[in-house]
C-alpha cells in the first residue's frame, strides 16, 4: 500500500536553513549599503557572507525551550538558597566583597554585551552571523538578569550592593570595566566581534568566570556557583562563535589580517588590564583560595591560549606581543592591585583588609620570587599601624592611565621597584599611560581616547558632586561629596573589614544559626 503521509516535521538541517538563512532576502528598492551602513568602514573585506558556518545550528524555537528549562532549575536553586539563609554558609563575611565587586563591575557588562551583540547582529549583511549574534545578545541579557537576581539576595543582608548600576557609571575603579566595554561597543561591528566575541569570550573568559565561579563554590556560595554553571553552556557557544568570527574574517580576504591582528593585540591587553580586578580577588579576597592568579594565567592563557595561537598561525595570526609584558607582571599584579584598594579603602564600595598571617604564608609560597621581598613588608607595616589605630587611608587622588583608566600602579616590566611611566604629546597636551601597550592603543586612535572620562580629573573639574553642591561653601568636604555622588555610604559600605557592620552582622547571625540562644 502506498500512502502519502504529510511530512510534519523538518529535519534539523532543513529547519536551520529555513529558520535562519531562509529569513533573509535581497533588497530591491533600497541599496544594500544604506541598509548596512557599518559593514565596510572598518576596512574589513567580506566577499561571500554565505561562507559563514554556524557550528551550532541552533534555531530560535529550540533556543527558547532549552533556556527556559535551564532557567527554571536555576531559579529553584536560587530560591532554596535564599529561603535557607544560604548566605550564612559562606566561609566568612570577607567573601561577600567578591560578590560586591562582581555585581558592580561585571554584571553591568553582561547587559552591555547584550546591547553590543544586538548592534553587531543588526550591522552584518549576512544572515548566519546575524542570527548567531541575536542569540548571544539574548544570552547576555539573561546573564545580566540571572546574576542580578542571584546576587540580590546578598543585598538584603550586606552593605555596598544597594545601587550597583548607579555606581557602575560613576565610581572610580568601576570606570575600568565600564570604559573597557564602552570602548568595544563604540567600535565598528567587526572590531566589537574581535574585541568581545574573540579576545574576551574566547581568550580571556576562563580567567574571569572560572575564578569567580570556582571561588564561589570553594567558599560555600551556592547561588553564585549555580548561575555560573547555568551560563556555562552559553559560554561554550560564545567561544565557538568568537573563533568562527576570526576564521571567517581571515578566510575572506588577505587584507583583513593586519587589521585583525591589531585588534587582537589591543583587546587582549585591554581585557587583561580589566582582569587586574580578578587577580586581586583570587589572591586576596577569597577566604578560601582556589588557585593563585599566576597559576590561573599559566593554565588558561599560557597553555590554552598558546595552543590557540599555534592553531591560528596558519592564518598568519601571531601571539599578541603584550603576552611578554604580562608574563613579567604575573608575580606582581594581584599584590599591587590589592595594595591600591587598601590605599583607597575609604572610597571603595567594599571592604579591604590586610591578609592574615597564614594567608601571607600562602602568598609567599605561591609567589616565592616576589611576595616576601616586595609585598610582605608593606602589608606587615600596614597591619602594625592599623593595630595602633593608625590604619592607612590614602586621601590624595591618584594619577590614572588615559587608556585603561587604572591608577598608575604598575611597575616597569622587570623592575617591581619603579612605577612605569609613559607619555605622549598630542595636539599640545600631555597624556599619560601605565604601559607601552596602553600608549600604543592611544597613539593609534588618539581622537577616541582624549575623550576618556577619567574619574580623578572629573572630580577636580567638579563633575562628581551631588547636584546643587557648592564647592566654594565654607567647610566643603570634597571626599564626602564625591561619596554622596557615588551613593556610597561612609562608614557602612567602605573602610576596613575589621569593625564593619558586615562583619558584626555575619558573626551575630551565624552565631544564632549555629548555637543555642
Amino acid at each position, binding site marked *: 500500500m502506498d500512502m502519502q503521509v504529510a511530512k510534519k516535521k523538518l529535519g534539523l538541517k532543513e529547519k536551520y536553513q529555513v529558520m535562519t538563512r531562509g529569513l533573509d532576502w535581497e533588497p530591491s528598492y533600497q541599496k544594500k549599503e544604506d541598509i548596512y*551602513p*557599518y559593514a565596510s*568602514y*572598518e*576596512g574589513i573585506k567580506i566577499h561571500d557572507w554565505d561562507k559563514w558556518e554556524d557550528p551550532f545550528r541552533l534555531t530560535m524555537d529550540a533556543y527558547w525551550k532549552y533556556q527556559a528549562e535551564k532557567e527554571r532549575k536555576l531559579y529553584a536553586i536560587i530560591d532554596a538558597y535564599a529561603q535557607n539563609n544560604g548566605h550564612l554558609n559562606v566561609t566568612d563575611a570577607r567573601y561577600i566583597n567578591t560578590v560586591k565587586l562582581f555585581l558592580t563591575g561585571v554584571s553591568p557588562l553582561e547587559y552591555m554585551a547584550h546591547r553590543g551583540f544586538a548592534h553587531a547582529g543588526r550591522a552584518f549583511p549576512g544572515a548566519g552571523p546575524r542570527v548567531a549574534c541575536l542569540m548571544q545578545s539574548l544570552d547576555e541579557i539573561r546573564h545580566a538578569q540571572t546574576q542580578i537576581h542571584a546576587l540580590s539576595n546578598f543585598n538584603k543582608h550586606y552593605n555596598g550592593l544597594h545601587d550597583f548600576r548607579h555606581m557602575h557609571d560613576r565610581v572610580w575603579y568601576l570606570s575600568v570595566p565600564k570604559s573597557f566595554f564602552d570602548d568595544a561597543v563604540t567600535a*565598528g561591528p567587526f572590531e566589537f566581534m574581535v574585541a568581545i566575541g574573540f579576545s574576551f569570550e574566547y581568550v580571556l573568559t576562563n580567567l574571569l568566570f572560572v575564578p569567580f565561579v570556582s571561588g564561589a563554590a570553594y567558599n560555600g556560595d551556592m547561588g553564585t556557583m549555580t548561575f555560573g554553571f547555568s551560563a556555562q553552556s552559553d559560554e561554550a557557544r560564545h567561544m565557538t562563535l568568537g573563533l568562527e568570527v576570526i576564521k571567517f574574517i581571515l578566510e575572506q580576504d588577505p587584507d583583513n589580517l593586519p587589521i585583525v591582528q591589531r585588534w587582537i593585540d589591543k583587546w587582549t591587553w585591554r581585557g587583561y588590564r580589566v582582569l587586574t580586578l580578578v587577580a586581586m580577588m583570587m589572591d586576596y579576597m577569597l577566604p578560601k583560595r582556589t588557585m593563585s592568579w599566576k597559576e590561573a594565567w599559566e593554565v588558561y592563557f599560557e597553555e590554552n591560549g598558546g595552543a590557540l595561537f599555534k592553531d591560528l598561525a596558519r592564518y598568519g595570526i601571531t601571539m599578541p606581543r603584550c603576552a611578554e609584558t604580562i608574563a613579567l607582571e604575573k608575580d606582581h599584579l594581584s599584590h*599591587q592591585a590589592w*595594595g*591600591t584598594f587598601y*590605599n*583607597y579603602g575609604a572610597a571603595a564600595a567594599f571592604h579591604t583588609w590586610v591578609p592574615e598571617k597564614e594567608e601571607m604564608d600562602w602568598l609567599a609560597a605561591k609567589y616565592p620570587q616576589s611576595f616576601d*621581598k*616586595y*609585598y610582605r*613588608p*608593606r602589608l606587615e*607595616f600596614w597591619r602594625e599601624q592599623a593595630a595602633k589605630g593608625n590604619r*592607612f587611608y*590614602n*586621601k*590624595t*587622588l*591618584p*594619577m*590614572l592611565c588615559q587608556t585603561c583608566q587604572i*591608577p*598608575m*600602579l604598575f*611597575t616597569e616590566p622587570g623592575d*617591581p*621597584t*619603579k*612605577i612605569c*611611566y609613559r*607619555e605622549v604629546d598630542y*595636539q599640545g*597636551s*600631555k*597624556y*599619560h599611560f601605565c604601559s607601552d601597550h596602553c600608549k600604543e592603543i592611544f*597613539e*593609534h*586612535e588618539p*581622537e*577616541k581616547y*582624549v*575623550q*576618556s*572620562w*577619567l574619574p*580623578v*580629573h*572629573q572630580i*577636580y*573639574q*567638579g563633575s562628581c558632586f551631588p547636584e546643587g553642591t557648592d564647592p566654594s561653601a565654607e567647610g566643603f568636604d570634597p571626599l564626602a561629596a564625591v561619596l554622596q555622588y557615588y551613593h556610597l555610604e561612609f562608614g557602612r559600605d567602605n573602610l576596613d573589614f575589621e569593625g564593619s557592620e558586615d562583619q558584626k552582622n555575619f558573626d551575630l547571625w551565624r552565631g544564632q544559626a549555629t548555637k543555642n540562644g
Partner: protein
Amino acid sequence: MAVAAIGKYEFEPADALEKFHGAQLLYIGWEDHLLFCAPFAFPFPPTMPFRAVVEEVLPGSFGYHPDFARIDWAQAEWFKSGQPWRPDFDKSLAENGLRHKDVIRFRTPGLRGIAGSCS
C-alpha cells in the same frame, strides 16, 4: 593613525586646561616608596610657589610614611617626564616651566622605604 569612522570624528579632549577652574594638573611621584600605590594628581594654580607644594601639600599626601620626616630636601633629586630636572623652590609652578598635566618625581637618596623594600 586616525580613528576609523563613518563621518567626521573630532571631539574636544575631556581634560583641557580650561575645565579646571583656573588650576592646572600636576602629577607627583615619590621614587622607592610604593606604599603609596601610584603617583598623585593635584590641581594647583600655576602661580603657586613650588615651595608651597613641597612644604604645604606634600606632608598631607606623603606624611604617613616614616621616611617622609627624614627627607633632606636639599639632597632630593627631581625628574620631569623622567629627565633630571631642577626646580626653583621660590618660583611659581609656571615659572618653573610646569604646564598642565606635567609629571614630576623626586628621589630621596638613602631612603628606600619600609625595611628597604621600596614600599
